[in-house]
């Protein structure tokens, strides 16, 4: 009888623990606020903006760093930007975008701006609900910086919050772990190879960088699509090139 009672108690405790874990999992940001007190502004902004950033990175990384690419090839239903192109046969490509990282940062900043404003407003509202007086924090300018190992979103919006004491912020930095910088620099190097020699020998890169995976696909019009990815983080960057294209036959017809 006693044993049966013990078993029941164990089962009840186990169910409570499992339910607790599930709740924490589902409502993590809110629950952590409840348990550990108010989040720091940067932490709040990070949680608020991360999904949007991830989605935007996905779009950009599948389209050669452009949200609305011009001069692209369709590959697996995606518009993949030509970062190097030559309309003629037999000639090496002309670089279309020499600053791939800067382009990626600029596009990501543009795409994230709306959400960044929303997040800042939400942050201010949250402080006001907690009885803080909030000033500033409007006209947010955000800047994305991609560096090795991470991607940083800088909210250049000075803000002051006061309750019992006053806290001033020049801005907020949100960091997201990412290997995108490495992938973009490899892409830059491949574009250099394509424009100089007409074709990139991708084995060289994988020999030097064990976590690198480069998928190279030549399409029917001699365009080459490169998918550069990190085998550990699974991040990837896709772009296209058309260099030293070979026609069918003698190329007397377009």
């Amino acid at each position, binding site marked *: 009888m006693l044993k049966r009672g013990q078993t029941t108690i164990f089962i009840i405790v186990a169910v409570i623990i499992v339910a607790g874990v599930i709740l924490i999992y589902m409502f993590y940001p809110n629950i952590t606020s409840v348990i550990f007190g108010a989040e720091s502004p940067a932490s709040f902004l990070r949680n608020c903006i991360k999904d949007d950033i991830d989605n935007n990175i996905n779009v950009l990384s599948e389209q050669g760093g452009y949200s609305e690419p011009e001069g692209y090839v369709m590959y697996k239903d995606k518009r993949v930007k030509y970062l190097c192109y030559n309309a003629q046969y037999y000639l090496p490509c*002309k670089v*279309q975008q020499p600053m791939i990282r800067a382009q990626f940062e600029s596009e990501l900043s543009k795409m994230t701006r709306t959400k960044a404003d929303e997040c800042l407003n939400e942050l201010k509202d949250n402080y006001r609900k907690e009885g803080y007086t909030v000033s500033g924090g409007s006209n947010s300018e955000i800047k994305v910086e991609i560096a090795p*190992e991470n991607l940083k979103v800088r909210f250049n919006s000075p803000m002051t919050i006061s309750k019992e004491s006053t806290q001033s912020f020049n801005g907020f930095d949100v960091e997201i772990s990412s290997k995108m910088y490495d992938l973009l*620099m490899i892409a830059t*190097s491949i574009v250099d190879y394509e424009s100089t020699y007409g074709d990139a020998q991708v084995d060289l890169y994988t020999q030097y960088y064990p976590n690198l995976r480069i998928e190279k696909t030549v399409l*029917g019009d*001699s365009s080459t699509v490169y998918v550069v990815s990190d085998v550990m983080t699974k991040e990837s960057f896709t772009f296209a090139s058309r260099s030293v294209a070979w026609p069918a036959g003698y190329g007397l*017809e377009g």
Partner: protein
Amino acid sequence: MDKKIAIIIFSVIVVSLFGIFVYAEGVSSGEIVNTLEKTVCCEKTNGGLFCQDVPDNECASDRKIPTSCESTSFCKGGFCFDSVEGTCLDNVPQVVCNQNNGTWSDEFPPQCNLGCCVLGDQASFVTLTRCKRLSSFLGLETNFDASNTNEVQCILSARAEEKGACVFEEDFDKTCKFVKRSECTIEGVTGVSETTTGNRSAGDKSRAVEGLTPAPTTPTAAPAATPSTTPSATTTTNQNAPVTGAVVSGINGSNKVEFFAGKLCSAEELGTNCGITKETICLPGFEEVYFVDTCGNPANIYDASKVNDKSYWANVKDKRESCGASSANEDSQTCGNCNYLLGSYCRESNSETANPTYGDNICASLNCVDANGEKKLHGESWCAFDSAGLLGGFIGGNSVGSKFYRNVCNNGEVLIEPCSDFRQEECIENSIDTGKGKYTQAACRVNRWQDCTAQRNKKNCENSDKRDCNWLEGIEYVLMGSVLSGENGSSSSIEGSSLQGIKERAKKVIEEEGGIPKGACVPENSPGLNFWSGGEAASVCAQANALCPVTYEKGLVGGGWKCVENCECLPGGELELKRAQLCTAMGDCGPKTNFIGQFGSGQGYKVTQEKLKGSKK
């Protein structure tokens, strides 16, 4: 004697096929210009591409000049220097570089000169600006040597400096960092642990704002335009040497820094707070699994049998002296001496790998198994061809729609890289014996078939330095150059005079070559043709058309017509098969199957007999 001359024409008909030969995988918004089109240099095309030589009607910008882009100032290709990243790209149109805030120059600019950039224990062969950029990312001082113009030497120089235990005091505790001798300074060992705060306002001490992250303690060389190298073994030291440290520098008497070459921080004799653990670590840029001490310093290569061996935790051991030297140790639970060249690399263990006896890291296998069940090493590549097979073993009888592929083993996965469509590239491969088996390397290379049919003798034809052709023996009456052009190889327009012209031409060729050509030069791998549009395919295939004058005789007194000359040209004769073979070798011509093995409709060629105009009855 009356003669009747029959004309045998092997006209080539482009095979019409049931299958779909062209993949709709690449719909491009970019313009494509054929070799004969009249073009202008266009700053921006309708498709949004910069500086292309395209037909006038495909140009979207007002700036267009009826000349080649290379002859213009705004679209001329040159070097574009990115002053932020320090990268330098060639063949960038001036307008593209300027629009992206780059520095364009026609000639190779001095800021693009490469030198040796040392980044901790790694190195990168890059420009000075790039070196500064990478160093700043890693929180290191810029160490650039412009005089070192050899990439291999550069990489090796970063490895040359000995490493050891750098002992110093921190918070009244004797601690240690495992670093290079030059890094064993107060700034070197304590500086890296300093964190930089973000853009927080003065006076705000109550809340930290997430800011810049501290520089990693173990530097990693970020990829550059010129890749860096894979790290090699650690330094060998004399284990019997007395423990003596070099006092490098000190702020005061109690805060000195001592360097012990070849010693590990966990060496008991150093008396630091760094002890032995059962944990392991993968170091960026290093292939092996390393033990890690309680201070987070890497120790020797993971060897489960030496987890409690104090001498193994005291002195640096060479890779060659460690467990399982010269083997990959894939999925070994007890040995972390991974070997990247043999296909293993330090990775965190997971469901697909074995579990190590200690720690969480293992030598994961990067090798693959090909379609035939043969083991392939990481980085190894080999050729594949998707043809349904060469028809009847014909030379150049590649299936319609088939192409070559290059398979590459990468991180345990076989990647398939197609060579160019239309078999404009072919795959070549070669193997070397490494002593531990064969290592194959393959590449897609241009198929040099274009001038095969212009070769008149076997020697020139099979000159592999210049072209990829084969000599097809025994094909006579090869009257190359589209004597009978057109899809049907119509001969109705051939007059007796034309026949004479052909004969004279053939005679001239024979005289030039010093004999009768007894064969034909054809592509080794027949090119694919765009046969569903335009007329180029027909003209390429028509090069296999031939005219064979067959002579018949009839006696004066009775009897029928009897073939007396070139009778093998008659339908069903021995030459028909050879002619068909010639057709298939020219391209997507003649009796062929597609790459999934379906035959084309019809015979793929036809033989017609006609009486030549002007011949005697």
